[in-house]
């Protein structure tokens, strides 16, 4: 059973659909990336999966649980968490408080969980009593990811976690993403940087104008003419 399953999902803002008939699965312990030009609907899809937007058709499953009609705020406690693209931390709360808020939907000992997470995210550990707003952009992204991990998720959805980061910090974030997948969590990452997306992912979906006709193993996708696909000029085979 996949960690996350989206089936024939159509959604948008208001009447006009932005994404059309998207199907996608994220297996346990793997990284799946979504790439595509600006405005292709990548963020829209992410928001739909995590319950911020309601799909007009299709269904979304976390494990064997159908969450299609579930109110967004109830979803994290079923193991699906989301890290938004921008402004993703509580800037006036400390690092520790951010993590505590993240642990709200968690069961069990959140203090122990926080210590575990902080021992991996060493930058955050050093800054645990600092206001999150004082962290660098990269550290804020890491904090948002760390906070999402507080519920010990089965699936995590990250929307451009490395946007605007230096190459070195991009490495740090991707390392963490790979670690998370290695714990058995399914990871879905929206990524602008094609090279990175291909390097770190097991599966890749290319979104163009609200559809994901092209998708497959990272190695297969790497051999395609991506520029042509991004511009909507080529239609590769489904894999």
């Amino acid at each position, binding site marked *: 059973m996949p960690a996350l399953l989206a089936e024939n999902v159509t959604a948008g803002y208001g009447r006009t659909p932005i994404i059309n008939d998207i199907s996608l699965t994220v297996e346990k312990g793997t990284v799946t990336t979504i790439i595509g030009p600006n405005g292709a609907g990548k963020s829209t899809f992410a928001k739909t999966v995590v319950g911020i937007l309601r799909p007009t058709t299709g269904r979304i499953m976390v494990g064997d649980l159908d969450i299609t009609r579930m109110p967004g705020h109830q*979803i994290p406690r079923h193991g699906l968490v989301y890290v938004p693209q921008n402004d993703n931390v509580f800037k006036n709360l*400390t690092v520790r408080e951010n993590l505590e808020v993240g642990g*709200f939907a968690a069961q069990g000992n959140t203090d122990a969980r926080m210590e575990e997470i902080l*021992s991996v995210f060493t930058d955050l550990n050093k800054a*645990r009593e600092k206001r999150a707003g004082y962290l660098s952009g990269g550290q804020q992204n890491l904090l948002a990811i760390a906070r*999402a991990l507080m519920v010990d998720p089965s699936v995590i959805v990250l929307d451009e976690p490395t946007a605007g980061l230096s190459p070195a910090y991009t*490495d740090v974030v991707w390392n963490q993403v790979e670690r998370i997948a290695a714990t058995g969590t399914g990871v879905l990452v929206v990524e602008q940087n094609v090279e990175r997306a291909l390097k770190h992912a097991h599966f890749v979906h290319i979104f163009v104008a609200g559809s994901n006709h092209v998708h497959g193993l990272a190695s297969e996708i790497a051999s395609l003419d991506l520029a042509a696909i991004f511009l909507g000029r080529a239609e590769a085979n489904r894999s």
Partner: protein
Amino acid sequence: MSAMWYYVFTLVFFLFDYFILAMGLNIQYGETGILNFAYIGFVAVGAYVTGATSLPNAAGTGQQYILGWGLPFPLNLLLGGLAACLLAVFVALIALRRLRTDYLAVVLISVSLVLYDVINNYVPLFNGADGLYNVPEPFASVLKLTTNSFVPFFAALTGVVALLMWWVMSRITKSPLGRTLRAIRDDDGVAATLGKGVFRYQLTSMLIGSFYAGVGGGLIIQFGGSFNPTAWLPAETFVVFAVILVGGVGNNVGLLVGALLVETLLIHLPAFLPDIPGHPGLIEYIDTIVVGVLLMVMLWFRPQGVVPERVRRSPFSLATRSSKTLDDRAIIVPTNDGESTPVIQQETANG
């Protein structure tokens, strides 16, 4: 007792009362980010209900009002607080559920104006423009208090109530609930993605704040024995905002300082100053201007207020930090299936 002491205790009363009002608005605006521009309306409802439940049946009093149960203090005060909560539920259901920040603020201003017009013009409710008067003074007959000794007595009583409510409020703001409210203030969207039912928390914050507003209002009518629409012009809300902005949003001690500076020194003290010859009432207007200018100066030079919000440090953080040494053993992260898989390797390099 000399007239001077009478004035001083009046100021003391308003200091404590506005401390209570400031705490109520602060949990809504300072902690949760709800711009409640109708705040004074909640204060008024608390005042009217406190008064109307302690007054005897209206027949024969020469006033018109509902309730008239002749309840003793503090039962009537409690009902005043709860009545303000009831208004909060109503307002939350029509406005808070669907609207955010500025839009909510606009709707709340309208709520304030509608409430004002209804109470001012619909006489059977709370005696219209004349308002309620002759409200019994709490404990006055039991303790044989005179008009003069009642003032210091009630100022002290209000101090006790304020202290109690301050204790409760600091418990709330330090609790996980307070933390969640501040998270919602920072970003309600992100809070929702973390599993917080944002509306439920905003409603909770509205209810707590409204209870404080209602009690603060109830104390005002108990102190002065009367309450009418001139006491709660919709613009009064901004005096309470001035208190919390000057004192320091998100800091309970700052609120007391704000109440002292704005409410006591600027609003009430000048009322005891002699009139400027030939211009009766001018001081009151100068006052409004001074408060406005002070607000602008504060927002420009010290937006965090006189006493800024503190970073809430965990009392245990130092201990836990030192107990966690940076060795490179693997940590076990349990997966959702309940099995444990050793995976995350301790980070040794930076990051």
